[in-house]
């Protein structure tokens, strides 16, 4: 196994381990593993202890699983992708176990302290929110992404005759066909489509306000949407550029290690942007969105991860546990979104898996 492959596998694992461990510090402070707490609970050190213990436990699991997989990798370096996938799956199971324990602790703490989360019986909405100017970026911003993709396609068409009959990408070799030359452009199309749809979903997400701070919560929600929209567009643009660079390496014989460098740069940039945004929203309190209709505990299933409320007409609601929004699984339209997400994942898996598998052998 080369040094590059080792770096890819270990940094991917570390990134996911970090996100799983630290996710407990994102989202609503008054929701602890799906258990809704009153404001006074925030001052209780036991609440902070439960969060800290989850992060520690998940980190310990991550260290053990990472160590075991490293050992496995040393003995079977040809199974790099399988080992990485297995380690991530194991880590997700372990973090779910840690979340389950933490939720039980939270429930016991709430019962012991006699805390009662006040269920808000007032509902507030703005008649003019987003009417003057949309809080999200217009879809026209994605013209830049489409422009990069078009450039890649036009270059490939213009230089078709100079493209060799056998294409190489890392350890992979392909015969030159229409599909192998343009497959990454197809991935670019998929990427742009997914992010445009995500942008539209953000714009359609509910703007439910806090009756106790109507104007403040409205501004917070609009800022929240704008930040997410900007982050999504930037991530999409970086990915489209990366796919373009990958295509150029394959078709025009650009330096092979450029793939590794551009890939690592992309991941680093995305991670830094993600953490930066989460930190910024935390500091400014923008992530503390009190979406009143969805705050009742009984609607959050599976350790507070899934929102299921048949009485709520909204399809997209703010995620209390972490970042962004989540689907109301009780809404009939949610099946369309879930089917679309699964379809995209399957298509990307079919296209990218053979390449990653060979690259990591």
């Amino acid at each position: 196994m080369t040094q590059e492959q080792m770096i890819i596998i270990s940094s991917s694992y570390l990134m996911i381990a970090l996100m799983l461990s630290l996710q407990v510090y994102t989202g609503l402070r008054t929701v602890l593993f799906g258990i809704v707490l009153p404001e006074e609970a925030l001052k209780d050190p036991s609440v902070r202890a439960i969060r800290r213990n989850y992060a520690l436990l998940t980190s310990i699991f991550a260290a053990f699983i990472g160590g075991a997989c490293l050992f496995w990798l040393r003995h079977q370096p040809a199974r790099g992708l399988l080992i990485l996938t297995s380690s991530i799956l194991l880590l997700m199971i372990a973090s779910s176990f840690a979340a389950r324990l933490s939720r039980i602790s939270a429930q016991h703490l709430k019962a012991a302290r006699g805390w009662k989360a006040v269920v808000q019986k007032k509902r507030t909405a703005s008649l003019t929110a987003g009417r003057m100017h949309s809080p999200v970026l217009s879809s026209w911003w994605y013209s830049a992404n489409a422009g990069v993709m078009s450039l890649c396609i036009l270059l490939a068409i213009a230089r078709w005759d100079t493209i060799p009959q056998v294409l190489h990408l890392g350890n992979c070799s392909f015969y030159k066909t229409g599909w192998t030359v343009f497959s990454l452009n197809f991935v670019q199309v998929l990427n742009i489509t997914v992010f445009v749809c995500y942008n539209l979903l953000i714009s359609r997400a509910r703007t439910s306000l806090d009756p106790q701070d109507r104007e403040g919560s409205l501004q917070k929600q609009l800022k929240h949407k704008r930040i997410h929209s900007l982050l999504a567009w930037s991530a999409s643009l970086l990915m489209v550029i990366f796919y373009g660079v990958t295509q150029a390496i394959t078709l025009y014989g650009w330096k092979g290690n450029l793939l590794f460098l551009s890939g690592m740069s992309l991941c680093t940039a995305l991670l830094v942007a993600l953490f930066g945004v989460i930190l910024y929203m935390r500091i400014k309190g923008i992530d503390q969105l009190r979406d009143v209709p969805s705050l009742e505990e009984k609607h959050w299933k599976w350790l507070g991860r899934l929102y299921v409320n048949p009485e709520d007409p909204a399809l997209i609601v703010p995620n209390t546990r972490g970042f962004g929004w989540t689907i109301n699984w009780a809404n009939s339209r949610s099946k369309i979104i879930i089917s679309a997400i699964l379809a995209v994942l399957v298509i990307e898996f079919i296209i990218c898996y053979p390449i990653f598998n060979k690259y990591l052998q």
Partner: protein
Amino acid sequence: MFIELDLQSDTPLYTQLADQLTEGIASGELKPGDPLPSIRRLAEDLGINLHTVNKAYNLLKQEGLLQVHRKTGVIVQPDGMPGVTEAFEAKLRRQLRSLAAAAAVRGMAEEVFAQESKSVYRDIITNRGGE
């Protein structure tokens, strides 16, 4: 302009919504031709049933305060508000009767009741520059 509904109130939600929209138009916060959120959008934002918002919008449409179009959506009546009709006067008398009776039972004087009514009316239309 904000809408605030009380789920625990005895007043039905669609009535609360219709009343607040009417107040918004009366005070000038909602001007003729102003667009309102779609039924689905407002229902989602408030977290209430679509039929509740639909009922409120239809009520105001029947009274001539809103226009509901499939393509352009919901807007405040741009072509002038409906005038005072006999039907409206009858409805006003009906609603005032119950309020007057409740006031009389509590020993409120006629002048005080009239003064309260005047004060509430003035409060609503003050934002329009007063008339």
